[in-house]
């Protein structure tokens, strides 16, 4: 009986390690552990950077180990979760002047193709839907690392960024010459499913 238990424990370990040999697969964002951030920065009058983030979003990516260019990623963001650490400004950001969250409660990104670069870098091209406008954007992405975590899972992390013109997505508020574009940085860790 003891032997049997031991044998099954060994085989479990082996299955685990066989699985962990490759690192391809489907990864879900670590929403629960909050190892994921969608942040943005925009110039304030040309004098400083204003940083904000979206607290509620979820997504997953599929990493194809053999052909990384066949990998894909999708993200869904709750636009009302915008947080710039200032209640009055957040209220303004949720209004019709900016995100118009009453009518467009969700923003999303769905990749359509991946162009590989050097050093774990890649251009992830996809459709970004924001404030009801869908446009093709390119995320400048980099794989930061992957491997077994200390708790029996397998994780992989990326950071990607892109620059958006407010006007392209129908955001009517004019913040001035220095603030026509916003840089969006998405930093995520996925847990292999």
């Amino acid at each position: 009986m003891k032997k049997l238990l031991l044998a099954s424990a060994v085989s479990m370990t082996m299955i685990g390690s066989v699985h962990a040999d490759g690192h391809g697969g489907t990864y879900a964002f670590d929403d629960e552990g909050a190892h994921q951030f969608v942040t943005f920065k925009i110039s304030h009058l040309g004098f400083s950077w204003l940083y904000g983030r979206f607290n509620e979003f979820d997504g997953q990516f599929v990493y194809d180990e053999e052909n990384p260019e066949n990998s894909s990623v999708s993200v869904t963001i709750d636009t009302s979760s915008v947080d710039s650490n200032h209640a009055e400004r957040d209220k303004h950001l949720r209004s019709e002047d900016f995100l118009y969250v009453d009518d467009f409660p969700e923003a999303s990104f769905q990749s359509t193709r991946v162009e590989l670069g050097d050093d774990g870098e890649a251009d992830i091209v996809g459709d970004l839907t924001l404030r009801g406008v869908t446009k093709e954007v390119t995320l400048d992405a980099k794989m930061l690392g992957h491997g077994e975590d200390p708790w029996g899972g397998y994780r992989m992390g990326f950071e990607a960024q892109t620059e958006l013109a407010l006007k392209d997505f129908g955001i009517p508020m004019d913040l001035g010459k220095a603030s026509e574009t916003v840089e969006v940085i998405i930093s995520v860790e996925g847990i292999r499913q």
Partner: protein
Amino acid sequence: MQVFNSSSRFGVVSILLHWLVAVAVFTLFGLGLWMVDLNYYHEWYKTGPDIHRSVGILLFGVMIFRVLWRVVNRGPCPLPGQAKWEVRIAHGVHGVLYLLLFVAFVSGYLITTADGSSIHVFDWFTVPSVTGQVKGLEEVAGDIHYWTTWAIVVLAGLHAAAAFKHHLIDRDDTLRRMVGR
């Protein structure tokens, strides 16, 4: 002119409070509606809300005093010749206006303090947040503030229309009493 209200006349304190609040409420309403649509580079973009918040807090203090004043010093009796239902509706509207004003004060205060920050009343004093940071509170408080303030100006308009009806159609002293006659 008398300081206190009597059974036939309003005193000067009640009269001044009435007109002060009337002017402040319509000014705050207009300022509020105007300031939220200002261009980012407009010189009132920051000043407008600063004044709106400061005057709102001060008006809250004035209204507390007004309610206390009214409790210890009741207004004059209804004029002879006014129907009971008329008096009852008028008093009802007054009560609802008072209530809505306090809802507007609290909701407006909560928009600004929803992230735990304080309200600076001019450069005079600071009112801290009582809730601390509450996620999304500014949205709920904002909706309540918007609709109660609309209700206030509509009701106040009705209240004014009724006063003119007394003055022009009934030709009684309702409006005259409010200016101390």
